[in-house]
């Protein structure tokens, strides 16, 4: 590699957000004809570093050079002129426009959709994309939208591509397709950077890996010269084990029985279609599926937050008596004596209040307790202090607003509060999304502890590798229907992946 001139050279890049040092004198080289995996835990500064390359942030210190020439990137426009294109985690597309319209949006010159469509097709043919230039964005799947984002960047002539966690929203099959495209681009001489924290993606795709930790550049090396364990250790800073416990369920008894549950959203689209299953005590029921296949509606229906069109959700007491949860709001469910805890996907938008401190967030569940019009503030703050110790929450104090905490600590606050009232049912949605490895394992352990206590756990997950290791059974949702329920032990990733995209998976093929 020494004979190549780096497409991008970043030297001594430093970026601060207030007191937080997001990037600390980072060195990074990006070469053409190579896929670089930028690896690091959440909050290690990967996205910040790439945002400086794509003109979203401006570095406090340091130099950037493109093909050996020093440059100043002040805006995304500057970045585009230098051939740098970034595909963000959250797509920036206009829903009511077609793919072609989105792609040419904001470009100077006369609007010629026909010529644009032709150029788009040429790009697609060259790299193996499938995009219909006429298709409207709202008709597209997440993976198609991502493709449009990538084509948009290529259309503008980018030859240095940065993808921020591109696989977070994809099924295994879609991921494979994306990787094939990225390899084509590499072979075409483009420089490709993918930001990720998934080890197997690094191994499957990248030629070189660069690792960041706490904003500092730890090292880079050819991917073939390293392995998952070494990379993990570099990422975390110390040796970690990568196995998740899965104790056998003890004395499982039915706890929640869902029958023929059908849910429509406000637009009348069916989100859940005759879903039936039973969740048992002392068991983790994993729920897999492409995002937006009804996972959210399912959990929210059980938690009393989602209007339901038909079906029933029974809570089965220890003595076998049943109670209907449908049609009851969270307060009514609590008043029935059902200790139901819910860790929702949207932590700061639903589970917690970002601008409130830890104590006040603990209060969310308990503020009604006690007589009188005034709030008992002492108990929740005491609980908050206990949680800080118990879950090792890194916070200046329990009076700190939770939005100031890192993603992992925010989640610990939420999970801590939800398990503090000794639940019998625990619903979790993407409990470890965006969390670093240490925090993730702490959450897995906490969930396992609840399982051992006899709690019926519903675990909605996106990382199939984790689901396959953690869950006792896996319920696969596909387009709002139950595609199948498989035992977690011995399930194959490929099979579950197929079930996610097609009802019943490969059973139909045979």
């Amino acid at each position, binding site marked *: 590699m020494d004979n190549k001139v780096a497409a991008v050279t970043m030297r001594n890049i430093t970026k601060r957000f207030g*007191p937080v040092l997001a990037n600390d004198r980072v060195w990074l080289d990006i070469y053409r004809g190579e896929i670089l995996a930028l690896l690091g835990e959440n909050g290690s500064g990967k996205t910040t570093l790439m945002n400086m390359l794509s003109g979203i942030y401006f570095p406090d*210190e340091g130099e950037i050079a493109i093909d050996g020439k020093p440059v100043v990137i002040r805006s995304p426009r500057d970045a585009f002129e230098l051939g740098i294109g970034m595909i963000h985690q959250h797509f920036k597309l206009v829903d009511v426009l077609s793919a072609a319209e989105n792609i040419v949006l904001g470009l100077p010159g006369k609007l010629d959709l026909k010529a644009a469509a032709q150029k788009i097709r040429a790009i697609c043919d060259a790299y193996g994309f499938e995009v219909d230039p006429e298709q409207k964005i709202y008709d597209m799947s997440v993976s198609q939208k991502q493709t449009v984002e990538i084509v948009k960047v290529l259309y503008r002539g980018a030859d240095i591509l940065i993808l921020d966690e591109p696989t977070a929203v994809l099924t295994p099959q879609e991921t494979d397709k994306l990787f094939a495209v990225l390899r084509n681009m590499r072979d075409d001489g483009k420089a490709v950077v993918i930001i990720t924290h998934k080890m197997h993606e690094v191994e499957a795709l990248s030629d070189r890996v660069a690792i960041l930790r706490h904003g500092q550049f730890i090292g880079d090396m050819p991917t073939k010269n390293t392995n998952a364990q070494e990379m993990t250790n570099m990422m975390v800073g110390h040796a970690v084990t990568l196995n998740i416990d899965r104790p056998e369920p003890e004395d499982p008894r039915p706890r929640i029985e869902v029958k023929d549950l059908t849910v429509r959203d406000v637009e009348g689209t069916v989100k859940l279609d005759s879903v039936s299953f039973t969740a048992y005590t002392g068991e983790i029921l994993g729920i897999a599926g492409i995002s937006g296949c009804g996972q959210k509606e399912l959990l929210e229906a059980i938690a009393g937050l989602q209007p339901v069109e038909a079906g029933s959700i029974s809570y089965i007491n220890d003595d076998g008596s049943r109670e209907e949860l449908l049609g009851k709001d969270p307060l009514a469910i609590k008043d029935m004596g059902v200790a139901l805890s819910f860790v929702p996907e949207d932590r700061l938008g639903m589970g917690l209040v970002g*601008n409130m401190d830890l104590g006040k967030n603990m209060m969310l569940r308990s503020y009604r307790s006690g007589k009188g019009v005034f709030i008992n503030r002492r108990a929740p703050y005491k609980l908050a202090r206990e949680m800080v110790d118990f879950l090792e929450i890194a916070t200046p104090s329990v009076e700190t607003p939770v939005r100031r905490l890192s993603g992992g600590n925010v989640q610990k606050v939420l999970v801590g509060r939800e398990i503090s009232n000794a639940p019998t049912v625990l619903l979790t949605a993407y409990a470890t999304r965006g969390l670093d490895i240490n925090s993730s394992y702490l959450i897995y352990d906490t969930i396992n502890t609840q399982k051992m206590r006899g709690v019926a756990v519903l675990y909605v997950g996106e990382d199939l590798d984790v689901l396959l290791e953690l869950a006792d059974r896996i319920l696969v949702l596909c387009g709002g229907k139950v595609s199948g329920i498989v035992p977690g032990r011995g399930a194959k990733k490929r099979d579950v992946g197929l079930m996610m995209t097609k009802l019943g998976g490969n059973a139909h093929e045979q």
Partner: protein
Amino acid sequence: MNNKTRTPLFHVARRAALPWYKSWAIRGGAVLLALLVCGLITTLVTGEDPIAVYAAMWAGSFGTSRRIWVLLQNIAMLLCVSLAVTPAFRMRCWNLGGEGQALIGCLASAACMILLSGKLSNGLVILCMIVTSILAGAVWAGIPAFFKAKYNTNETLFTLMMNYVATQLVAYFCVVWENPKGSGQIGIINPNSQIGWFPVIAGQKYLLNILVVAVVCVAMHIYLNYSKHGYEIAVVGESERTARYVGIKVERVIVRTMLLSGALCGLAGLLLVGSTNHTLTPTLVEGRGFTAVMVAWLAKFNPVWMILTSLLLVFLSRGAGEIATNFGLNSSFGDILTGVILFFIIGSEFFINYQIKLTKGAGKEK
């Protein structure tokens, strides 16, 4: 390689939370700077001595003990309306109808005074005034709240429109109850019997209002920060989804809080009619319902800080009036100075939240 010239000289970055003394130092600096700029403008435009102008401003508010009482009364009434809109604002429900809610309270009080005098004893008339004006304010806020809770209508427009309805209603009744006939005005109500006039405490006409509002201020502070209701308001304001998630009935909280908001506006109307003015005009509230929005925002919805921000705004407006009369300037000149000062105060918040960083090495040879 002449890219270096393109390096921006500075960029804006978010600050970490500043300690309170630093942020207050920035605010204080902003006020000083504002006074300096105002002085410059005064000298350049009018040729008056800026020090004399400031002295006149000061004298306008603190010149005599009577002026101090008027100042305090104005602060109290502005504070009362500001406190009234605050619970709604904390809930991110933009009640811009404080003006109309207070005015409808005025109307209810005046109606009691006019229609019930001679029929009920003074005490009962006052009791009726209290009940009806508070109720009227609550209803005036309750109508938009109901529609917001039930049909998710926009409360900003709705409450704003209710102001005009209230103004027109009052204008109508001013004609109906005109006194003397043909004047189109109500004039002082019950000037001789003084029925429905609130008692004067310790010989100070304005003391009652000031005391009532002081109590409301403390009560509001406690209600918002220490009660279960106050907590629910904060949660609904921060995130309705979180509120539903923990089982708070969002619609109920919206209606309840708006009723409280309107009731306190009604109280302000009651005090204006019963205690201070003893009359009814369509402009009796003097735009306080709108100024209150600024008072509440400047104080970041903190009832105690609102004492300071309403003092500031009342001081500025009285000072502006004083300058206009003393120096024979157009009254708009006072408004210009007020505008400049507010611009600096509001602008200082930017420097509390953000800092300007000079780019290191900008323009230097590499």
